[in-house]
């Protein structure tokens, strides 16, 4: 049984990652039974990229490798295509995976409102605990690098904006002027060109190459559904698709129906007991058995850092000297930080006497004085 580790769905989309959705659509349309696990964590993948396909004992990760593995198992959706059609399909897939995906990243990450009110909350909701503070930042960083060649610069969403400004932004009504704001960006010209190219290719056909679906249809659905289905705060891509490219929009809806109806071919999703093993990582190993982790670290690092382990090769004198120097320099660094902190009064150690008692005794003193005065 195939097992697929993917990103889960959010924002009214079956998956938040286009490559995962494309692969899943492919598996469903080729009628293969599979189990799905929504790991929502790129750390589960050997290359740091989902989807991961586990076929018996073979792990493959990343869109290209997963697809070639699927084709190897004898399920080629492109059997009915001519060599020329296969060649063109490769070109259209490149278009979807690069330019069209970059336009989506622009809409998600460049528009601060989309990012703060839709994308970031969805990601935070999906990603498991310690990773939700790391993975969205990595994703944004990657999007930033991908948008540089287009001359698009991502600025920090919350930087230099006060709480009041953010609240005002969130409450501002979606007027025509806010819709127009940034609506003429050259990335929207690019996305229109892309939609036009795809719509022209599609024409009046049911699928890109005739009446039966091919790999290109899976990829097109995977990538375009994220343009079309999410209801973002500023869903310009959706508006452009609906208003200017209606037959492409209808195609995406048709593909969604097909995607959902073919799910009967696959086995039901795994229950909590049949969990797929996830690759060991720093957080996983702590979470699984904290005591064993602590023991390991203690035996390896803390007890005797200079002693060579029994199983490992014996360390040379140079290595031991290096480790000794490293420990001393770390200790010296920590010591100097502590001295700096205490010296500059960042943390003060003072002995404070019990204030209440002192105050009270003072009061009594006064009273005693008064009494004495009265006696005088």
């Amino acid at each position: 049984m195939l097992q697929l580790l993917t990103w889960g769905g959010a924002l009214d989309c079956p998956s938040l990652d286009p490559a995962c959705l494309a692969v899943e659509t492919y598996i469903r349309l080729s009628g293969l039974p599979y189990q799905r696990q929504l790991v929502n964590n790129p750390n589960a993948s050997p290359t740091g990229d989902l989807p991961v396909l586990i076929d018996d004992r073979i792990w493959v990760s990343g869109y290209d490798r997963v697809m070639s593995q699927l084709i190897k198992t004898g399920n080629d959706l492109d059997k009915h295509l001519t060599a020329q059609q296969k060649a063109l399909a490769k070109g259209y897939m490149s278009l979807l995976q690069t330019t069209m995906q970059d336009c989506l990243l622009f809409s998600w990450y460049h528009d601060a409102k989309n990012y703060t009110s839709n994308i970031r909350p969805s990601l935070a909701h999906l990603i498991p605990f310690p990773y939700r503070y790391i993975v969205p930042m990595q994703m944004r960083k990657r999007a930033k690098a991908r948008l540089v060649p287009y001359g698009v610069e991502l600025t920090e969403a919350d930087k230099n904006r006060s709480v009041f400004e953010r609240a005002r932004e969130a409450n501002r009504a979606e007027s025509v002027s806010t819709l127009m704001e940034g609506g003429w960006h050259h990335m929207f010209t690019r996305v229109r060109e892309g939609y036009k190219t795809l719509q022209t290719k599609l024409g009046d056909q049911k699928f890109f190459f005739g009446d039966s679906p091919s790999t290109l249809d899976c990829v097109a659905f995977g990538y375009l559904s994220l343009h079309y289905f999410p209801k973002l705060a500023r869903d310009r891509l959706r508006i452009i698709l609906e208003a200017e490219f209606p037959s492409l929009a209808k195609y995406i809806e048709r593909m969604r129906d097909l995607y959902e109806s073919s799910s009967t071919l696959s086995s039901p999703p795994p229950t909590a007991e049949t969990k797929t093993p996830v690759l060991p990582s720093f957080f996983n190993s702590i979470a699984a058995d904290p005591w064993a982790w602590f023991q390991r670290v203690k035996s390896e690092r803390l007890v005797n850092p200079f002693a060579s382990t029994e199983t490992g090769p014996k360390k040379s004198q140079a290595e031991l000297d290096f480790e000794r120097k490293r420990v001393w320099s770390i200790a010296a660094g920590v010591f100097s930080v502590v001295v700096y902190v205490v010296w500059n009064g960042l943390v003060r150690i003072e002995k404070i006497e019990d204030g209440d008692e002192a105050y009270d005794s003072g009061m009594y003193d006064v009273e005693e004085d008064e009494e004495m005065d009265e006696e005088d």
Partner: protein
Amino acid sequence: MPTTLDQHPLFPILQSFKSALSTFPLKTNAPVHTPTPLEKPTLFIYGPGPRNSALSFDAECVVWQAWLTSCGVEYATEHINEPLSGPKGKLPFLVVPGGKTLNTDQMQHWLSKNYTVHTLADPEKQADSQAIISLVETKLRDALLFSIFCEATNTQLMRQTYFDHQSFPLPHFLAHQAREGAFDEILLRNDTVVRSEIYRGAAQALDALSVTLGEDDYFFGSAQPTFVDATVFGYLHVLLSRPVGTSTTQPTLTEEQLAQGRQLRELTLERKTLVDFAKRCVRNLSNNG
């Protein structure tokens, strides 16, 4: 109390100060170097390259040289090798009479406004051509970047062609930087950089190009070269014309490393249709240009 400026007590002093200043500049010499006004559009490219040819050694520059020639533009070329002088920090760029500097996007617009640009009449074929351009700019570009900037055999040639106009230690630093930049660019489109996977992708792309071209002179049976032809030619020309390291030129490298440096060129040479297409384009360019 003085009411107007000329009644002000300081007025004569100001007046003499003004007349003294008005004598400057005392003498105006003729400018030592005046840039000659452009008579025709000038394309700034990387060049002249190891073969000292009129075509650049950089794929994007060759694409635009071919495309401008196909559109019948009479232009001059300037070998500048300094990408940061361009409006987008990369070459090529075009300077037109009047002093306007155009990047590649603007060049396309300028061409369609001023010249007859050949396009494919059938909208579906036009869409297909966009897909082919996209394929070249991803799969073939990744392989070309990897081969030129990351293969040990080609590092020396890359440094000589791209950076040798700089003085001594700079070419080494810049070559290192360019290599890192190439890695980063490949990683934008791939999760890992693996030689065998990159070249497999390129081989598939070359097969796709070869099948799409078929027996025709130009892509999609066009009588005139279109932008897709210029793009494919640009990349093929660089793949084919770039000298590869041999055991005599690079005696320190192993036979395996030399074979890796040649791999992409050999993949291209295996596709006879594409080699013929590149030759045809070079002939046309030399006839027209």
